[in-house]
């Protein structure tokens, strides 16, 4: 699938973090974005829209990222979830991977890391 055709869900309570990630992915060719500002919204939007990839923060209100991963994986065991968090401790990483996350990015955002994650999943422009 081409990146421009992929539905990309960004779950982060910071409107700034969502914008920064969206800007980077747009510059790489991404077009279809879905936004969620808490863990529950991420789960609800996932179930409704079945995005190709989810970028997910861990520390979020209502439901945190790890709870969202667990519920999404229960709904769709093939879900492709990438954690983007400022709290990249070993135990957070371990927990997220055990729950089913495929990748883990430590904030601040690094364009090259995002590019590499997208290149592994989608065709370029």
């Amino acid at each position, binding site marked *: 699938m081409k990146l421009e055709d992929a539905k990309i869900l960004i779950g982060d309570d910071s409107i*700034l973090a969502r914008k920064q990630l969206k800007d980077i992915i747009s510059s790489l060719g991404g077009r279809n974005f879905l936004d969620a500002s808490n863990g529950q919204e991420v789960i609800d939007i996932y179930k409704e829209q079945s995005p190709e990839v989810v970028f997910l923060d861990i520390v979020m209100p209502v439901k945190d990222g790890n709870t969202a991963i667990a519920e999404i994986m229960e709904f769709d065991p093939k879900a492709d979830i990438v954690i983007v968090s*400022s709290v990249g*401790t070993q135990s957070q990483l371990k927990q997220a991977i055990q729950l089913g996350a495929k990748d883990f990015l430590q904030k601040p955002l690094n364009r090259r890391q995002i590019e590499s994650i997208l290149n592994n999943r989608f065709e370029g422009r």
Partner: protein
Amino acid sequence: MYSQFFGNYLLSKHIIPADKLISAIENLHTKHIKLGTLAIHAGLMTAAQVDAIVIRQTHEDKRFGELAIEEGYLTREQVNSLLDQQTPDYLLIGQYLVDNGTLTNAQLEDLISSYQAENKISNLEHTNIQKENLQTLIRNLFLITDTELSENLFKYLTLLFNNLIRFIGEDFAPLNPSVCKEYLTSQCSTQIINGEFSMTSYFDMQEDTAIIFASRYVKEKFEEYDEYVQASIEDFLNLHNGLFNVNVSNDDSIELFLNPPVSMENTLISSASNMILLPIMYPFGILNFLIKL
């Protein structure tokens, strides 16, 4: 890192007012350190000797080093060694203040030796940020609050200064911290750290300051206080606290937890116990960090 603390030193000793310090900090990048300033700093020449050479330079077209060698103040090896050294950046502030007439070389000489003595900085190790030096600088900064800095709080503050340099810019000076039981916020974000070490952090600033803070942090120009500017305050605090958790986890195998950050505006924060207020002065305004342990 030293220049920020030297700035605080100059303010707390009432050597210069805040506006002069800001102007010195803003102009640092335009300055190159002079050999005379380095020689005073290294203890190889006195201020009077440097002044004498500077006067000679007004009627002789020779470099400072050549004249200092002629006068027998320095050897050629010493000149070369001084020129090869990395410049401790706090010296640039000192030199700027000499160049614009705020200080004399003699006053700078006294200041350098008292600053080094009080903070146990030796001439030999000034080029690198030594952990012990930084520890002393931070502990001395907080002496005024009569607060015992725990190892974790010290780590938190060290990371804060590093993150400010990394994400916002090094042109700041910490103002003297204080303790308070009440604080009225402007535009503020707060976040709780839980676990073996727990604290509530607040990061507060005026709207005008936040606009420039956000522009620097996001590397985009913001013109007005909007939701992205507000989010940048929250984002910086969340990033800083997250990186702190990662460090504590890596260094001490202790897992701390973060609550989501929350924004507040014109809110009175009160606490039964003392809170530590640390103002950070940038040319564009003051960033206030408040820590409730």
